[in-house]
């Protein structure tokens, strides 16, 4: 399908930006540049549509707070790279896929179903412990910090504040 509303120069810029970011943090973009750029184009389309770069291979609700786990890079990227050598969309791949030792294939969906997600939300009240500061965890990269509030931007993987969860 054609998406004439996103121009190619923007896709190229975005591609170079996240490629650099990925490589400096030890991640790899899919070496199939055409496939990768079409995913990036879709992320930009979603940014324009919803106001956040929702995962192109998942159905967005249009509400950021419901989709915060699937803003690219999603919460499921690292466990999927670990178990299946790629993220769900195939945008990020393992070193073995990069070198061609393994072949990229579609992987199962790890994100809980809409009903399961509702249950998780209800049960997700962290107990308050007797600590001088709460501990926050970045759900994308696992970075931990102890302070009143999470930082505006994760210093490690650069995602926004709302990607943090109360850890302890």
């Amino acid at each position, binding site marked *: 399908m054609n998406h004439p509303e996103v121009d190619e120069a923007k896709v190229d810029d975005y591609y170079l930006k996240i490629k650099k970011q990925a490589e400096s943090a030890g991640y790899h973009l899919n070496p199939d540049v055409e496939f990768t750029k079409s995913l990036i184009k879709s992320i930009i389309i979603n940014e324009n549509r919803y106001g956040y770069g929702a995962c192109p291979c998942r159905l967005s609700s249009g509400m950021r707070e419901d989709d915060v786990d699937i803003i690219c890079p999603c919460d499921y990227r690292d466990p999927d790279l670990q178990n299946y050598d790629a993220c769900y969309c*195939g945008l990020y791949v393992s070193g073995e896929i990069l070198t061609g030792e393994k072949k990229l294939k579609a992987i199962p969906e790890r994100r809980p179903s809409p009903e399961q997600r509702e249950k998780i939300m209800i049960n997700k009240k962290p107990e308050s412990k007797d600590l001088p500061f709460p501990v926050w965890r970045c759900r994308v990269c696992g970075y931990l910090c102890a302070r009143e509030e999470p930082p505006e931007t994760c210093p490690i993987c650069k995602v926004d504040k709302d990607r943090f969860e109360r850890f302890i």
Partner: protein
Amino acid sequence: MPMDHVDGDNKGELVLYALSTCGWCKKTRLLLEDLKVEFSYIYVDLLEGEERNEIIEQVKKYNSNLSFPTLVIDNDKTIVGFNEEKIREALV
């Protein structure tokens, strides 16, 4: 229902629920086109309001995870994800 239709050999009623932005959905659609089978498809992310809710409920009946692509054959058999082998097998 706003389904798009692709002509080809009739191998049963094939309905592909997909997202317009998703790489695996695109590969699935292209595979079906390559196999020259008749099918209908719908981009769920482009729907709004009642229509969207209706189609979402339909997809959930076959795939409670509400993930894409979901290919439904004869209102009965479901293939979730771009599983080339399974799709080829189902359509011989």
